[in-house]
């Protein structure tokens, strides 16, 4: 039975061609994400079915060509050449056909069934261009060409139909016909390859690769033919491929109305302006921050009312059940006060990620790399290294992972050192709370100043590291700037939902556990449950640290405990303060007054609060970050040194802020 065979499809395409969006649209939730064996490249697999035919799909990393210079290229190449891949779906961005077709030409040389999925046809139309969908397949060896819109979910069934019916047909592998002399060489190499490796399936491909002097192919299919393989013909081969592509583009692409072209260039004259680029970027970030603060705060009220109702309700409910006092205390003072307090910050987090998602999806993020290239160059890094740092405003964990895009290991490590100083969203609750309590008139400015401070610390640090590593030139910037486009609601909704889900699950797990642990060490001592908090484990531990933290204005045992607890996740600093001072709804006006009064009794004022925020900005972000840095750097020594450094730096900075601040105020 033919239908029992599950068709294996590989998705191949350039970065930014919408491949992953298309893949997601086809597989929906049926997907599995893992790493390719032995490398840190993500492998995404999913499945779907079409008219009873099961189809498995693999999403390969975005690549520009099938050479073997980067890990991504090697992985993709090995995968498409594997025998079990039946069909290759080559996703191309129709609005930059010329560059996208280069990969297509290489894929065609394999002689495997290829289907061209033409994405972004709407952009083509918008720009007043037209593509001849009849001529194009003719020029590509009669492969199916399917216009799709990943964003609008159009053409998906046609694509699956093509997969189902095309997978057994072989294609013409001779789409690009090289010059006579090259073709002669190719056929004699093919001949000798066939003699030496009779089972070799990809004759033309292998012959071309041998003539290109491709390292991997030379190793695998060595051929003793110095008369033919006298030198690398790579340049000629690339050139002639591009010559043919130019021919194709000339014949299938028409400009109906060229006036619409260059919208992106117009926007870019401002956004990537030699002088205004940086101020515009800072302005955008300030605006994002302003939205996070104001709209987030407005929405927060709703959450607070809900939390208040929950707290009262839970207390009354448990009392009604005749629950013992410690159970009520655990649930109300421990879990709900801790976890619930964190949930009230959800609106801020939501807005922040919404803004980051829009910036990324619109195509602006890539410009940031260009805008910051000069400044980053002065500290010995390429503008590309700035992107993980921007992501760091969202969450340090994905930001550290994003350093993978840097080619040089030394650049990666330096970026990993800098990224934690970008204030992640988990630090936001701390800033929001303490700024509102101690700088009520200037809360937004106080909080923003910490973002700037983090950035300054990172820049100074980068300069110092750059001096140490002088002579070692950084990997240079080489990055595509995609067309600007209207952010897609669906793509952004998925992005924001994933982050919000992370935040919620953190509240449900890490912060939940941390709240219980904090509650435990505050309500229990060596003699069991205590009524006087001074006898508790927490107080003992905190008192022990008081003298150390005193020079930084943080010599309160409660603060010490909150900071230690904050290592599990930064939001925990806030939730543990709530538990420590027994304040049930910390983010409400009443909660804040209660907290600042409580702190005020110990002489903890505005300067102390600022020192605390600085400390929280700089010290080790969280366990998850430590684990990620270890995984990405593959070195415990590096990771531990970094943690110690962060703690020392936070301490020294907090001491300086407090001592200097106390003189001024």
């Amino acid at each position: 039975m033919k239908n029992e065979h599950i068709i294996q499809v590989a998705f191949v395409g350039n970065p930014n061609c919408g491949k992953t969006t298309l893949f997601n649209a086809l597989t929906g939730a049926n997907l599995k994400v893992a790493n390719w064996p032995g490398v840190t490249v993500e492998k995404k697999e999913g499945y779907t079915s079409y008219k009873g035919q099961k189809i498995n799909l693999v999403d390969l990393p975005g690549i520009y060509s099938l050479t073997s210079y980067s890990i991504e290229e090697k992985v993709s190449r090995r995968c498409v050449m594997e025998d079990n891949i039946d069909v290759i779906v080559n996703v191309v961005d129709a609005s930059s056909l010329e560059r996208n077709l280069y990969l297509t030409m290489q894929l065609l040389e394999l002689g495997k069934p290829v289907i061209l999925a033409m994405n972004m046809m709407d952009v083509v139309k918008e720009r007043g261009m037209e593509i001849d969908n009849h001529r194009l397949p003719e020029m590509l060896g009669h492969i199916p060409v399917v216009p799709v819109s990943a964003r609008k979910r159009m053409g998906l069934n046609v694509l699956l139909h093509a997969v189902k019916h095309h997978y057994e047909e072989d294609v013409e592998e001779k789409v690009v016909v090289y010059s006579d002399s090259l073709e002669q060489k190719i056929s004699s190499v093919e001949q000798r390859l066939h003699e030496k490796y009779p089972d070799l399936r990809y004759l033309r491909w292998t012959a071309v690769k041998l003539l290109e002097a491709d390292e991997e192919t030379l190793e695998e299919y060595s051929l003793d033919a110095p008369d033919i393989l006298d030198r690398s013909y790579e340049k000629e081969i690339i050139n002639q491929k591009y010559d043919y592509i130019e021919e194709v583009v000339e014949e299938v692409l028409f400009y109906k109305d060229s006036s619409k072209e260059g919208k992106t260039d117009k926007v870019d004259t401002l956004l990537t302006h030699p002088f205004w680029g940086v101020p515009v970027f800072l302005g955008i970030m300030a605006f994002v921050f302003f939205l996070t603060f104001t709209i987030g705060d407005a929405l927060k009220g709703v959450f607070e009312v809900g939390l208040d109702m929950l707290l009262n309700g839970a207390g009354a409910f448990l009392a009604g059940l005749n629950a013992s006092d410690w159970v009520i205390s655990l649930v109300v003072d421990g879990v709900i006060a801790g976890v619930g307090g964190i949930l009230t910050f959800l609106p801020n987090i939501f807005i922040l990620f919404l803004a980051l998602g829009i910036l990324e999806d619109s195509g602006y993020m890539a410009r940031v790399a260009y805008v910051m290239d000069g400044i980053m160059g002065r500290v010995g890094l390429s503008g590309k290294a700035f992107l993980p740092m921007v992501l760091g405003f969202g969450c340090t964990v994905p930001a550290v992972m994003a350093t993978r895009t840097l080619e040089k290991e030394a650049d990666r490590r330096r970026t990993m050192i800098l990224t934690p100083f970008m204030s992640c969203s988990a630090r936001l609750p701390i800033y929001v709370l303490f700024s509102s309590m101690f700088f009520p008139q200037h809360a937004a400015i106080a909080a923003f100043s910490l973002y700037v401070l983090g950035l300054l610390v990172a820049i100074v640090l980068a300069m110092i590291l750059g001096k140490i590593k002088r002579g070692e030139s950084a990997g240079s910037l080489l990055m595509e700037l995609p067309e600007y486009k209207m952010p897609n609601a669906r793509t952004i909704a998925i992005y924001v939902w994933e982050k919000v889900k992370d935040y919620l699950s953190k509240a449900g797990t890490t912060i939940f556990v941390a709240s219980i642990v904090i509650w435990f060490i505050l309500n229990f001592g060596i003699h069991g449950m205590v009524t006087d908090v001074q006898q508790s484990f927490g107080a003992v531990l905190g008192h022990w640290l008081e003298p150390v933290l005193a020079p930084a204005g943080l010599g309160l045992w409660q603060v010490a405990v909150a900071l230690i607890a904050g290592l599990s996740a930064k939001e925990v600093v806030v939730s543990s303060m709530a538990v420590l001072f027994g304040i049930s709804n910390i983010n409400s006006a009443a909660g804040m007054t209660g907290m600042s009064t409580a702190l005020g009794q110990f002489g903890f004022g505005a300067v102390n609060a600022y020192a605390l925020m600085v400390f929280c900005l700089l010290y080790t972000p969280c366990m998850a970050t430590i684990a990620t840095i270890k995984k990405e750097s593959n070195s415990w020594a590096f990771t531990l040194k970094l943690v110690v450094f962060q703690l020392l730096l936070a301490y020294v900075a907090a001491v300086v802020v407090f001592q200097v601040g106390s003189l001024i105020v």
Partner: protein
Amino acid sequence: MTLLNTQKGKWYQVRNIEEKENVQRRLEALGILTGTRVLVLNQKKSGSTIIRVRGTRWAIGRDIAEGIVVEDYDEK
């Protein structure tokens, strides 16, 4: 001249690429090779440049721009 001494908004043709082996190969795979036409869209004092090649925009750093030797290209 190299891409560093070019004018914004003008077309050039690549005459030679003088880069390290790996950079050169990456540029070639992206379609930036001898004979390719390049439009300079933007350039900063630091040398970071935006070019248009084969319908796509690329941001390139100073040291790569420095290694791309170009000559004036007449649009006709």
